């Protein structure tokens, strides 16, 4: 018998004005697995990943994290669950007025009540892991995009979350630095970190994902292991999307 999924969405729907961004999404994320969301822009990937931690509050549906239900209509419930589920953004979003170290310790200290010295020790260990120990006392403006994004990842890790959400973590990066961020993410996946990733990096999806979910027009069109989804997509919509990004890739690389 298998354990309950770490994150479970049932019938998650969201409307912006007259636009129905999400139509009753069901999604399960098993503990220790990597789920990659792909799809054309406007398909609802970013809205969906934000519905998992309430940055966008779903209108209806049920959400369970680690077996407990989240009351989606109460901000306090979201605030509690967000300490369990970290998030990494496209634009890094480090706090520019705080040092790298303080960026990482401020929430563990204020929100988890971890003593300053302990929080700093853990933060330094995490920075060492991503090769940025020497930047601990620098401000974010002194770091490159790739370095800032690695700090953003370990800032999320410093809260000891049960899962991490990634919203297009490499989209704002220079091609040369994308690799350093993807390497960190691959490391995390190997260690069994539960991850939900919105990305256009199909190579990463193919290599790391346990399951790839293809979305279009606010619905999940099809999902499956990367080999199946990329190798033998069942739906016409998926095939069209994959061939459009492949021809784009050939235009760039070929």
């Amino acid at each position: 018998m298998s354990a309950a999924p770490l994150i479970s969405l049932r019938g998650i729907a969201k409307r912006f004005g007259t636009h129905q961004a999400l139509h009753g999404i069901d999604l399960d994320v098993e503990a220790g697995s990597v789920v990659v969301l792909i799809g054309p822009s406007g398909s609802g990937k970013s809205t969906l990943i934000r519905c998992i931690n309430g940055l966008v509050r779903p209108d209806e549906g049920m959400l369970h994290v680690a077996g407990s239900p989240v009351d989606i209509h109460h901000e306090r419930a979201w605030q509690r669950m967000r300490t369990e589920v970290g998030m990494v953004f496209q634009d890094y979003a480090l706090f520019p007025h705080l040092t790298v170290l303080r960026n990482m310790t401020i929430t563990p200290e204020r929100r988890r009540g971890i003593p300053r010295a302990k929080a700093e020790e853990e933060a330094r260990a995490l920075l060492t892991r991503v090769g940025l120990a020497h930047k601990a006392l620098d401000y974010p403006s002194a770091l490159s995009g790739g370095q800032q994004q690695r700090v953003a990842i370990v800032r999320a890790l410093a809260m000891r979350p049960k899962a991490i959400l990634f919203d297009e973590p490499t989209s704002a990066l220079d091609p040369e630095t994308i690799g350093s961020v993807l390497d960190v993410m691959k490391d995390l996946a190997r260690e069994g970190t539960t991850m939900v990733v919105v990305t256009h990096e199909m190579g990463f999806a193919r290599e790391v994902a346990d399951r790839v979910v293809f979305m279009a027009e606010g619905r999940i069109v099809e999902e499956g292991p990367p080999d199946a989804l990329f190798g033998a997509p069942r739906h016409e919509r998926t095939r069209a999307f994959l061939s459009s990004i492949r021809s784009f890739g050939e235009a760039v690389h070929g």
Partner: protein
Amino acid sequence: MEFDFAYLTAQWPALMRGLWLTVQVSALSIVLSILVGVLGAAVRVLQVPVLDKLVVGYVEFIRNTPLLAQLFFIFYGLPGLGLRLSLFWSGVLCLTLWAGAYQIENVRGGLETVGKGLREAAFSLGLSPWRFFRLVAAPMAIRVGLPSMLNTSISLLKNSSYLQAIGLAELTYVAIDRISMDFRTIEMFAAICVIYLLLVLTLSFLASRLEYRLNAPFRL
């Protein structure tokens, strides 16, 4: 009639007592008005129901009525409503309310520069809206808003001279009081203008030190 330095020397102790009162009432009001500014801006930005409308009304009222009328209302009007304040605290209340309205707008302007991305990042780490405001948004907004907050503080310092109208013995009051007895107009007004100028320069210097420190994270 020539400029009489000996007269000024004789009046120096009185001027210094006035100056000390000006410094006390202004410094206290500057600190309190910045507090009003930060809290008022928080109420506006976090859209606290009812309170945010009150803040809008307060800012509009202060900005669109003369300071002297506000001062007389506080000193002569409030006792009629059952609130009797000393001269000193009437002055502090008047200057704080006046400058507070402008400080709200100054801090709010600074908050505009704190993007949605940082808000989402703070929320995603489990911070409440209030903690986000206190730990991230307010420090960033104060840095950006500092030049305009200094302007308002300078105006407050200069406007403390209005308090002579209710009889608070600050610097301008001392000067006018002495002029009415000794008719040494030139000496007195020259002296207090120089003193106000030095006060404002000191305030600007302190603010530029603070700005330098707050900008440390953004210097490369």
